[in-house]
């Protein structure tokens, strides 16, 4: 990798690395230790900090509000993942077909919401969902579907799905582009020979496309799982976690614990729990993927 000529320059390396590494350690790694440390303290921001060992964590696993906020993360994860991946996959198949036109325009349009600020998107959808003036209820009324109108953000039974719809709408472009690049890697000859054998579009999709795109689908899956733990902005702006606690997610709960109840120690413990849950989710999915691909390889051998 290195020749002598390069080695002579090594003396500069520490100076080149230092600023970036220092900033990175300061804002990404030290907070990790700060969170770990204060998770063991009873501390409400003042000079008094009491070391209480695992009491915060014991409180955490009995805290119904925290558990229900975590459950909301999981509900959102399942709903968002399911629709996002399926709709994006169908869109990618259609967009990849020889029969469709204006491909660049469609890709441009469907990806556009991804780059727009989540706060602006949330404000916009809050108005669309508005019970009295909102676009959605007005539209439903005007086409004679009044029975479908809802208190989209004010009904505890509906609110999570309304939020999920916005998240699906905003981020589907990412999954569309991932699937498109996966589809372009599938060799055309396979389809042609399948077509000669008389396979129809659905068989071709389930028997050729999906198996060949397994890797891509799994990447999208991991991305969707990781994304679901990051949901915050949409909820903060659209519902504030309400009505009641119906749409509070874990990050929001930690935020409230800090800024409304000033329980810094407990909020630190919550943050570490979120970290643990997210990392375990990602690691578990990756393990499952490995297991699946290993068993398949054995099958081939």
């Amino acid at each position, binding site marked *: 990798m290195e020749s002598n000529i390069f080695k002579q320059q090594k003396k500069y390396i520490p100076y080149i690395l230092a600023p970036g590494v220092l900033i990175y350690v300061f804002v990404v790694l*030290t907070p990790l230790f700060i969170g770990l440390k204060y998770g063991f303290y009873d501390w409400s921001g003042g000079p008094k900090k009491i070391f209480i060992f695992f009491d915060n964590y014991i409180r955490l696993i009995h805290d119904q509000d925290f558990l229900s906020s975590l459950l909301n993360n999981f509900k959102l994860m399942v709903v968002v993942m399911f629709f996002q991946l399926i709709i994006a996959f169908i*869109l990618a198949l259609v967009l990849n077909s020889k029969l469709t036109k*204006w491909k660049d325009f469609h890709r441009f349009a*469907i990806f556009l919401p991804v780059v727009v600020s989540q*706060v602006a998107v949330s404000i916009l959808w809050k108005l669309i969902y508005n019970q009295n003036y909102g676009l959605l209820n007005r539209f439903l009324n005007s086409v004679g579907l009044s029975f479908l109108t809802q208190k989209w953000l004010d009904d505890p039974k509906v609110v999570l799905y309304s939020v999920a719809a916005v998240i699906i709408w905003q981020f589907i*472009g990412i999954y569309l582009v991932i699937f498109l690049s996966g589809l372009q890697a599938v060799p055309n000859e396979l389809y042609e020979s399948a077509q000669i054998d008389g396979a129809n579009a659905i068989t071709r999709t389930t028997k050729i496309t999906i198996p060949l795109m397994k890797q891509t689908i799994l990447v999208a899956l991991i991305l969707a799982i990781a994304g679901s733990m990051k949901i915050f902005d949409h909820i903060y702006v659209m519902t504030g976690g309400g009505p009641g606690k119906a749409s509070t997610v874990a990050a929001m709960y*930690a935020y409230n614990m800090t800024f409304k109840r000033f329980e810094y120690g407990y909020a*630190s413990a919550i943050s570490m729990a979120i970290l643990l849950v997210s990392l375990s989710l990602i690691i578990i999915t990756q393990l499952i993927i490995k297991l699946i691909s290993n068993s398949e390889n054995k099958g081939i051998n």
Partner: protein
Amino acid sequence: MSKLRKFRKSILNIFLLGYSLLSIYPLLWMIMNSFKKNSEFMVNNMSFPKNLNFMNYVDAFMTSKMNIYYINSIIVSIVSIFLILIIIFSIGYVFSRYIFVGRRLMYVLFLFGMLIPTHSLLIPLFTQYKLMGLLNSRMALILTYCGYNLPAGIFLVEGFVHSIPRELEEAAYIDGANMIDTMLKIILPITKPVLVTSMLLAFINIWNEMPFALVLASKDSLRTIPIGLANFSGEFSVNYTQLLAASVLATLPVIIIYGLFNNQIVNGMVSGSVKG
């Protein structure tokens, strides 16, 4: 072409067009209604405005301090991006050309940074800055944005430098140039495309970022656009059209940049998120 095929073709095209419209219509609706008076919006928000009324935009600047938020966002974005570009260029270069003590560890740490859900560090970071007296400062935001945007950029630069042949640098070293000269005069011009992509992605991230800004710089005079907008939505929740005008102002820079560089942005974002 058979009739069936023609039928299929039009069905697929209509479906696709329908979905694309679903993606952009809400944004067009936002722009359209931002030109209406609030009273007009209440009566009818599905049609075009009767006449273009720029009052909402003027008010957004005059009464809801969008000008302050704009300036804050611009300062924070520019300084952070400046730091990010210098750092990812230098670390990415060194990573791809040299083996040194601690390289593996640093590599793993930067990778780990892409895996950590930032929301789990929101409160600890707040605590840390509070203990150090750094809360409510531009510095706090700039350092944070810089740190969290480093890993993606470093790996992008590193991968790109790998594809550059070493002969150019070797020749420069033989001629007596040092590492810094070589980086600036030979590598930097070649690496420009990746740096531009990194810059665009970092800009979009920082311009839109909300949770860190909410927690670290909540003072009114330091608020960035997303926080200003979120607060505005809480305070003046009845003046809908002004809220929409402020939202249009907040999204305009990003939409313009997306319009100009959409291929780079789409590919950069997707490859970045896939690696993470």
